[in-house]
């Protein structure tokens, strides 16, 4: 993965985190927040381009940013997103992500797995109340899945802008 692409993806996550955290503050109710950082990690991992260490490094930076905005202990999002990146890379050659439905199903499964992994790692904080936290996993996963096709399409457009146009390259 090129440094430019990595920086753009990290900036995209940063902007998304600023926007979601600010908008949530205006709502009198708790709205399930989609896991935007996870979606970017999934997009990069399923794309499969680049080396594993490069991808992992980007996932760690994205996770670090997510930790700063999530109120979670530092390292929790980094670790779970790094694991998600490795799994997405490993599955990239076996998964068909051709339609929005495919994207939604993959995002749903990934968000559930991500939520469960987070709960398992931070279980010491919950002191017997993990069942309440467990109930939040499906709602967050559904929200994440619902916006996944839109997020993937938007990230794809970003990617296309970063990639030089082959026709122009030939002309020059």
């Amino acid at each position, binding site marked *: 993965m090129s440094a430019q692409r990595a920086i753009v993806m990290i900036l995209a996550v*940063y902007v998304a*985190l*600023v*926007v*979601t*955290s*600010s*908008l*949530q*503050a*205006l*709502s*009198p*109710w*708790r709205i*399930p*927040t989609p896991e*935007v950082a996870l979606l970017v990690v999934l997009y990069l991992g399923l794309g499969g381009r680049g*080396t*594993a*260490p490069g991808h*992992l*490094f980007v996932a*760690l930076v994205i*996770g670090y*940013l*997510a930790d*700063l*905005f*999530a*109120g*979670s*202990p*530092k*390292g*929790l*999002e*980094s*670790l779970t997103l*790094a694991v998600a990146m*490795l799994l997405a890379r490993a599955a990239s050659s076996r998964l068909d992500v051709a339609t929005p439905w495919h994207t939604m199903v993959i995002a749903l499964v990934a968000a559930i797995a991500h*939520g469960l992994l*987070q*709960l398992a*790692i*931070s279980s*010491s*904080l*919950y*002191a017997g*109340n*993990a069942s*309440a*936290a*467990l*109930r*939040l*996993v499906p*709602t*967050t996963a559904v929200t994440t899945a619902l916006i996944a096709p839109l997020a993937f399409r938007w990230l794809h457009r970003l990617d296309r802008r970063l990639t030089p146009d082959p026709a122009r390259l030939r002309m020059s």
Partner: protein
Amino acid sequence: MTLTRRARELVIVATLLAIPVLFLRANLAASDHLNVVDRAILRVSAPLQAGLTALVRGIGNTWTRYIALVHVKQDNARLVDENARLRAELVAARNAAAREGELEKLLALRASVQFDTISARVIAVETSAFFRVVRIRLDRGGDEVKPGMAVIASAGVVGRVQRVFGNWCDVLLAADPKSSIDVVVARTGGRGVVKGIAGSDRYRTRIEYLERKDEAADGDLVVTSGLGGFFPRDLPVGKIVKVDKRGFGLYQDAEVQPVVEFGKLRDVLVVVPREAQPAGPTLPPSEVGK
């Protein structure tokens, strides 16, 4: 890919994975430490969040007034312009009055609390489903604020300062699973610890370590005990809504409905303890539970 290259990649991957594990190990219990990079990112982000929140609030207010104008126009065909103007002014005046009422309560609280306080405004909330943290902008004196300090609103306890960066703070709400506040049941005097209920889709708390002999009941007010020196004594925390009476053990648990509506939280006060704080009640009895 050659075997050597593959092995090198594996070593790098393992090393990179070890970084968050080590971070997590160090931060799972106490997450108030911020390094230089954390501070830099948060100091850049907080004004952006504040600006975005203010912008959306402004757009929302304009939109609300426009809708009000449309309704008036439909209902009062002959007096469209006049009614629209008056109604818009009324809405603005009501909003201003409501806001002033909140601020007056906050000022009254500020006067009654015998601690120094710094006013602040909520600008953002956490993005994780499992934690309950809000970001606030202090009106002054970021240097005086330290992690652990109490944050209160006109209704009662909000939480504690988790980390400070410049004039911005992250506040761990009382409803967060990492939060614990020493409390007293006002009616019985029974002591306990209020903790957040993890991952609830509402802002919920429960009181733990409440001795079984304490006859706590639904509707009982729970107030701060004042122990620890950060929270003033007798500040309302919540009301007991469900007592879990067990037939065994030393303690009973109870679910507590916070008195503060965290979802509607806008203006708060950070309590700065004075070192030479005299002992004794910090709120007049008439203020308890209001």
